[in-house]
């Protein structure tokens, strides 16, 4: 029986062949935010409370990276037992002038990462339960 593909963070990214992160753009001043769950524009010169969905660039440069060699505490749920170390990337988006975090797919070796390299957004498993495969965005080196 196949599991239901379920977004672990609904409204934060799209699950499609060319996935993107979804930012929120202020309708008044056009300031851009991620994550998109904004109630107030955080530009101090703007008091707007109205936003529109705004897809972010799905490519960027690796700003920095690191690893989790030990299992993070709850509410993190490891996708497999025993715990498998994984990398976390911070990627700089040129047009948006912002840095966004994401996990790196387990298949990517740490040695393959280098600050400044091109990265792209992918969708991968966060963890699964009986019925659902929970999905999350990740940053993967452009191959």
């Amino acid at each position, binding site marked *: 029986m196949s599991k239901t593909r379920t977004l672990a963070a609904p409204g934060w990214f799209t699950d499609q062949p060319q996935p993107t992160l979804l930012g929120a753009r202020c309708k008044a001043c056009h300031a851009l935010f991620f994550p998109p769950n904004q109630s107030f524009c955080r530009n101090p010169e703007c008091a707007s409370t109205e936003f529109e969905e705004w897809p972010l660039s799905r490519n960027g440069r690796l700003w920095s990276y690191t690893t989790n*060699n*030990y299992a993070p*505490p709850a509410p993190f749920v490891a996708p497999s037992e025993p715990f498998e170390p994984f*990398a976390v990337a911070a990627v700089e988006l040129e047009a948006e002038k912002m840095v*966004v975090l994401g*996990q790196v797919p387990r298949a990517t070796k740490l040695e393959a990462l280098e600050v400044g390299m091109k990265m792209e957004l992918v969708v991968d498993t966060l963890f699964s339960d009986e019925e659902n495969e929970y999905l999350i965005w990740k940053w993967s080196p452009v191959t």
Partner: protein
Amino acid sequence: MADEVAILGVGMHPWGKWGRNFVEYGVAAARAAMRDAGVEWRDVQFVAGGETIRNGYPGFVAGAAIASALGFNGAEVGSSYGACASGTQAINLARAQILAGFCDVALVVGADTTPKGFFAPTGGGDRQQDPDWLRFRLLGATNPVYFGLYARRRMALFGDTEQDFAMVKVKNSQCGAQNPNARYPKAFSLDEVLSSPMVSDPLRLLQICATSDGGAALLLTSLDYARRHTSNPVVIAGASTRTPRYPNTHLEMPDFASDSASKVAAPDPGFRDSIAQRAYEQAGLGPGDMDLAEVYDLSSALELDWVEAIGLAKPGEAAGLLRAGDTGIGGRIPVNPSGGLGAFGEAIPAQAIAQVCELVWQIRGQAAGRQVEGARVGVTANLGLFGHGSSVVVRAH
């Protein structure tokens, strides 16, 4: 200057993993600070507590919890929370009360009892609106993940090495070994640091600060009051609890992203660089006037970021200072002579207060085994989650 307050007394409860109620550490530190000042509890008019959020209701009302344990004396009370900057929030609360003329004698106290292992979000349940819960859930972004990202960035940008980061730990552990209040009495070798288990690449276990139990306290007074007790009080000349200006382009823990600078230009200076700047401005001093600094070394590499952020080195040059021995005891500008968080571990509401305790001991010449000769003026720097800057300039009067 008219806007100074005196630090008449300082005190700590030694840091460790004692497993007792945080109030015990707070009371011990408070009594030590009052003893040091020669001030009786009945004479304290204001109590400022740094809150601890992992110890139930008494932790949220820490000022009252500790005042109650000392025996309620009718003093005014306030409790402050600013994550790791809670201590400076409490200091500034007490300082403002004194400078406003509402009181002459204030006790500032912070204490914590911490769980073992990684800090995790407080409270249970699904909290889809809490960014601190979500960063663990969606990213597995522990605190060391952020420290690792900052450290790797330094390596890529400035050419810092794993050995540089390990040397910070070696340097600070030598000081910590001489500090009776520090948790870790061991001076580590470079080999020991570099062979400890990797936690968040490039940072290893011995380069990441632990979570500790401990307490720290200050007895603050007006200058007039202090002069009746001592001819040469140490004073707070400036204190900053500032927030960032939008957009903060530095990726801060526990955020998923930095602010976007696509519509509004990034401020200059950026947040971290602005924190000590305000304390310097209040003091009428600059980084070149400092004799020593206590900075926020959650990781060994992070010490280098802060050395630059408080203006002791230009961006990218902190490792050069370290290699030249400038930031060690006997160097030009010793950093973390207490041993820093690497030797203490984090006791969140106490740590910014503990930094000030160390500056006072150093300026009085009471830091045996780790004394910075001729110390007259120093600065602290610290940062709490969700935009809490923290910096205090302390000097001999």
